[in-house]
């Protein structure tokens, strides 16, 4: 570390010695860009390169024009410039080698640290951003260029994408269905014309540059194969322009590969060799970071999570501190229970009605005597279900399948524990939910149980100064309140007491919470989303359930459907019940339930869900969101889900007394 610093600083000192000496003799040249001179205030010319600091006003202006950003931090080795099209240009301090879009290149001078800033080879950077420095007798003209022509063929369809440094201003001249001419004003090009690629729908691509150095015009002529048709594709980026050609043979000609082949033809980076390009790679499983905690004496149930498992099975994860023997029993009337001997429960008993798979109820009780305590977990199922037990060092996982069993065994015993494992191991598969992988997330005993409360808290998302998402004339805060008010009516009819975090267009924020969160360093004056107040409404009321209602949005138009998010393990069966009941009524795509660190589901102490009802960014979903009948159906679906999960409040109160 120190040696490195010493070397860096010595380099900086040398550089400035040069810079000071250089100012007199080797002043930065006149640099012309986009109609004006770029004025550099922290720059020095060297070896045909222009070394410019990241704090230089000219550098800042140049990058702003290109919508590019710089990431650099003192005490770091790398300087990363992100172009508008999301390619990155990566410089390493003290090294001439750099990468642009994953392709390696050499700068004549290595970048250096300069206090809190970095000094970069400007011309190399400009080229990487598709801007070519063109020397004229009097000055250097920074000429934006068409930097890449991507040609991608899939089946009988060839997609040609033009990428440039700047938003593309195009004049299109479609001469025929087979031939199109694109003119880009203000852009030069060093692309070579390309001939025919076999098996594609494009015969040739011609590139011609006219105009002056300062105001060039590039014309690209694409000649399709005989009988081909073309259309312009909407592009996600203003810096890219895409035309698709389809051959007359259509899909007949095709040996269509299942995935698009790598970029071919005229782009500089060969896909296989470019380090910045995706390759098939397997993920290394993360090692479990479990910390064993040995507890002597009597065993204690410290956690109990009820989670959906594969094939509609229900998994109950019992976490024990200490070792315990258990015995299970199957009764004739579709009941099954397991007793943990010499074991105590850290919380009160628990009743769950998951309405999930084949499980009708789960009941947890402290039984036995004070000398010989026992904990009983009992299931009521729809039939003689297959029930698997998986003892581990941390406890026992009980999996209730939807399949029935013909096994005649009526009882069994086992032993579990010995060490309580604080399970928060990283899931090895990024796409598996924690319930699939066994990465338990429960910090301990949670009161997901039926607490006998008749109160449900509804949270219409956003409100007041926070409109939420806004697309196609829809405003999220208005829709969420509308659905919540409809749902309130339905739940009151079921016998629930309903509290709302907001009844009008306001953002519910308590001054107390703002002060507390600022004091804790968890918020700042610009942080308008103080969601704690919404959680407090439910936590302080001792609510049985919490439902937050939202409308989704995505940067990708194709994303659509309904998702119910949960965080705490006891949220999961509730989320399943809501999703299962909303989908048939709403008619939206079933995007399933997802485990997610959303604030309101994490910071509420009862089973809680956040439903993203539909996407305000998908035209199909937008058409639905515009219909009051859809909003009513969503409300009805949620109400049905509540009933399926928790029954009606009067029935719960009755079962609590028993």
């Amino acid at each position, binding site marked *: 570390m120190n*040696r490195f610093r010493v070397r860096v600083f010595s*380099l900086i000192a*040398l550089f400035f*010695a040069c810079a000071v*000496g*250089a100012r007199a003799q080797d002043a930065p040249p006149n640099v012309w860009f986009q109609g004006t001179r770029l004025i550099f205030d922290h720059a020095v010319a060297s070896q045909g390169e222009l070394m410019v600091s990241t704090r230089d006003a000219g550098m800042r202006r140049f990058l702003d024009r290109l*919508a590019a*950003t710089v*990431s650099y*931090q003192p*005490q*770091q080795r*790398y300087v*990363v410039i*992100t172009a*508008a099209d999301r*390619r990155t240009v*990566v410089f*390493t301090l*003290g*090294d001439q080698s750099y*990468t642009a*879009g*994953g392709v390696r290149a050499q700068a004549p001078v*290595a970048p250096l640290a300069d206090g809190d800033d970095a000094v970069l080879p400007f011309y190399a950077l400009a080229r990487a951003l598709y801007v070519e420095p063109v020397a004229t007798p009097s000055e250097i003209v920074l000429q934006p260029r068409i930097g890449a022509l*991507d040609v991608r063929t899939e089946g009988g369809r060839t997609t040609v*994408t033009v990428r440039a440094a700047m938003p593309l201003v195009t004049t299109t001249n479609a001469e025929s269905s087979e031939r199109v001419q694109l003119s880009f004003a203000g852009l030069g090009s060093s692309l070579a014309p390309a001939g025919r690629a076999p098996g594609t729908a494009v015969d040739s691509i011609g590139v011609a540059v006219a105009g002056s150095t300062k105001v060039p015009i590039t014309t690209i002529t694409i000649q399709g194969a005989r009988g081909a048709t073309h259309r312009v594709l909407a592009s996600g980026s203003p810096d890219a322009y895409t035309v698709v050609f389809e051959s007359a043979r259509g899909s007949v000609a095709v040996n269509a590969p299942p995935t698009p082949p790598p970029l071919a033809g005229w782009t500089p980076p060969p896909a296989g060799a470019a*380090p910045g*390009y995706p390759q098939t790679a*397997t*993920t290394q499983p*993360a*090692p479990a970071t479990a910390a064993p905690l040995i507890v002597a004496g009597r065993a204690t149930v410290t956690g109990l999570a009820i989670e959906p498992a594969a094939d509609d099975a229900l998994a109950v994860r019992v976490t024990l501190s200490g070792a315990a023997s258990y015995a299970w029993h199957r009764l004739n009337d579709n009941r099954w229970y397991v007793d943990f001997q010499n074991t105590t429960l850290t919380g009160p008993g628990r009743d769950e009605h998951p309405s999930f798979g084949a499980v009708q109820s789960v009941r947890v009780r402290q039984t036995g005597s004070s000398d010989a305590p026992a904990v009983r977990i009992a299931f009521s199922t729809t039939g003689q279900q297959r029930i698997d037990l998986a003892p581990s060092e941390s406890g026992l996982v009980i999996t209730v399948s939807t399949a029935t069993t013909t096994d005649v065994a009526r009882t069994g015993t086992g032993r579990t524990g010995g060490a309580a494992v604080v399970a*928060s191991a*990283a*899931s090895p598969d*990024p796409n598996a939910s924690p319930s699939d992988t066994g*990465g338990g997330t429960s910090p301990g005993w949670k009161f997901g149980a039926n607490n006998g409360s008749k109160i449900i808290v509804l949270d219409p998302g956003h409100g007041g100064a*926070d409109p*939420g*998402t806004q697309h196609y004339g829809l405003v999220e805060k208005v829709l969420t309140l509308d659905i919540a008010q409809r749902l309130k009516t339905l739940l009151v009819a079921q016998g629930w007491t309903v509290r709302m975090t907001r009844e009008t267009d306001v953002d519910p924020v308590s001054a107390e919470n703002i002060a507390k969160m600022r004091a804790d*360093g*968890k*918020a*700042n004056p*610009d*942080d*308008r*989303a*103080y969601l704690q107040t919404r959680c407090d409404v439910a936590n302080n009321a001792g609510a049985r359930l919490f439902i937050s209602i*939202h409308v989704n949005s*995505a940067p*990708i138009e194709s*994303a659509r459907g309904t*998702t119910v*998010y949960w965080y705490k393990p006891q949220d999961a069966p509730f989320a399943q019940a809501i999703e299962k009941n909303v989908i048939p009524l709403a008619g939206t795509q079933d995007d399933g339930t997802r485990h*997610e660190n959303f604030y309101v589901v*994490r910071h509420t102490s009862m089973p809680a869900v956040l439903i*993203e009802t539909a996407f*305000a960014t998908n035209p199909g979903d937008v058409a639905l969101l515009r219909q009051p009948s859809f909003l009513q159906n969503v409300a009805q679906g949620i109400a049905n889900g509540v009933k399926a999960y928790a029954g009606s409040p009067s029935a719960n109160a009755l079962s609590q007394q028993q």
Partner: protein
Amino acid sequence: MLIVLFAVAVAAAWWFTTRAKQSAIGDTITVYYAKADGTTLVPWQVSLNPARGERGDAALDRRSTIFYAATQCVAGPPPGTQAVRFPAGTHVLAVDVQGSTADVDISKDVASSAEGGFAESAEFKALVWTLTQPKFGIDSVKVKIAGARVATLPGGHLGLDEPLSRSSF
């Protein structure tokens, strides 16, 4: 005089960079991005630049590599790859590494559009998975927006009051 000084500087830089040995982290890192479904993560391999490895300072090596990984994840996969991306202009301002926690400061562009839970979830799942790859020795990720601690993202869904980890998603 000037030329001599510069020659010395360049020679020093050359000497410095060629004294490389094999890094403990290796020459490539894994960066994740979220597919269009908003939850499926795709890993891609990114070479460190340059692939020379460590310069005899393991702490600098680790800190720089984690910073690099964060910038690559926020920039997202190459153009043309369909992915749920951070809003335009979003970039990493700083990454501080304290033990097994990375504290990432992201530019305010991340708040430039009020996003739904879908995008917040996809973006930060990819970031957390990238930074917690085993060889970095990071297990939790704190997030700041333009230097400030926030309770949630401005979109108002994802909680940022507690460090994020792989089990957050």
